[in-house]
């Protein structure tokens, strides 16, 4: 290497030119990919909403087999988007897909908004609630589809930011874990009773089996469900009456 011992003026000029080149190329790349990645993100989250009612799509359809356009089409035709405030009142002119729970979580409890998706097939209506909480390492979140009796779970999906693969990450990776929630009852005497039990479920109406080695993540799921679903209680009570 025959590098020169350079003057300050040269170094500063070099750094400025380098920064400009880097900034321009990054900005260009972002502009180039922005529309595609926004669309991808939208399809990804809509897919995970539809996945909760996967058993009720009709015609033997499966969300994982649908193409991106079919997902968007189904979402437009069969899903109604509602935004609620913390008192269970509908906030008009807002789309549920625009509500980001990670942002809402940072607001004061009274100012939070809740997204609600209502999926309709030929026979039934499903209310899809979104919840967000903490696992062992980072945030976890999920969608819960409730049947029209406002008590029975039709399906759930979970996702996480950084749980341990093979342990906490099983809440998403192992379809058997979210699968356990199907058919469970949520409410007991007006309180959220559904939970993940370490060492195996006892009351099969409300409880699902925990994952060995992932106790904190599972406790996080329980906490997230009980707190998250409780936010929707005022609204669910109004539609029940």
């Amino acid at each position: 290497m025959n590098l020169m011992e350079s003057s300050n003026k040269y170094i500063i000029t070099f750094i400025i030119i380098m920064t400009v080149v880097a900034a321009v190329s990054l900005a260009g790349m972002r502009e180039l990919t922005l529309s595609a990645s926004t669309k991808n993100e939208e399809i990804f989250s809509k897919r995970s909403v539809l996945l909760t009612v996967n058993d009720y799509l009709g015609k033997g359809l499966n969300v994982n087999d649908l193409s991106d356009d079919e997902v968007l089409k189904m979402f437009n035709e069969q899903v109604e988007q509602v935004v609620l405030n913390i008192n269970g009142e509908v906030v008009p002119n807002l789309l549920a897909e625009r509500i980001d729970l990670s942002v809402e979580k940072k607001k004061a409890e009274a100012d939070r908004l809740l997204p609600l998706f209502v999926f309709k097939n030929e026979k039934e209506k499903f209310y899809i609630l979104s919840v967000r909480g903490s696992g062992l390492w980072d945030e976890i979140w999920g969608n819960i589809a409730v049947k029209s009796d406002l008590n029975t779970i039709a399906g759930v999906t979970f996702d996480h930011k950084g749980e341990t693969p093979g342990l906490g990450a099983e809440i998403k990776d192992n379809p058997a874990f979210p699968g356990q929630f199907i058919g469970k009852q949520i409410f007991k005497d007006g309180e959220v009773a559904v939970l993940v039990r370490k060492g195996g479920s006892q009351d099969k109406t409300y409880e699902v089996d925990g994952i060995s080695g992932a106790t904190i993540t599972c406790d996080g799921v329980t906490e997230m469900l009980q707190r998250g679903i409780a936010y929707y209680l005022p609204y669910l009570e109004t539609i029940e009456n």
Partner: protein
Amino acid sequence: MVEILEKVKIEEKEPFFGTKEKKLLLDPLMDTNPITVQILGVCSALAITSLVYPSIVMAISVTLVTAFSNFFTSLVREYIPKQVRMIVQLVIIATLVTIVELGLKALNFPIWKQLSVYIGLIITNCIVMGRLEAYAMANKPWRSFLDGIGNGLGYGAILVIVAIIREMLGKGTLFAGSPVEIKIIGNNATYLIDTTTSTMFGWYANNNLMVLPAAALFIIGILIWIHRTINPKLVDIS
């Protein structure tokens, strides 16, 4: 006479793709493998090798980043001020990694989501900076580019080998999440090897240890052992 000889020599020295270039490309696959011989980039190899498909995407990303950062660094190597050498290298690497990440987010969102922070962490992958310091700062752009490709592929090869072992034994699938499906041996309902279900041979119980990062450490250790047994001259180098 001497002048002509020198001219011939120079022309001979610079073929576009000669033995030297071939060596640059192939050596990192075996004799100077970044993971098993140089022991660089092990951290990401532990973290993302539980599935084959993300490993392949990661390997391609690292190959692109090493190749192009080598190329650009080599291109400006004579103009880089000595005092800020490392900063310049880091800016080049970081820019390229961000470009790769943005591209991946637009092209294959689920995989981007799955690899999460590890694409960004290519910036800290020792292979990239190691090759810049060891090779690109002293060599011409084309050769530096090949050196980057070679090292990226050497890294990727180990990544994919480890991932194949871990995914088969740990999850019972292969290429999960990708469009690739392999269904062979047996008839319609009971394929002996079916890469889409979670028990590949029908009788094998998945070993959860293989999914944990610790398993990757064992497998890489065994690979290093095998590599050194096959090629004893490696033992003396380190």
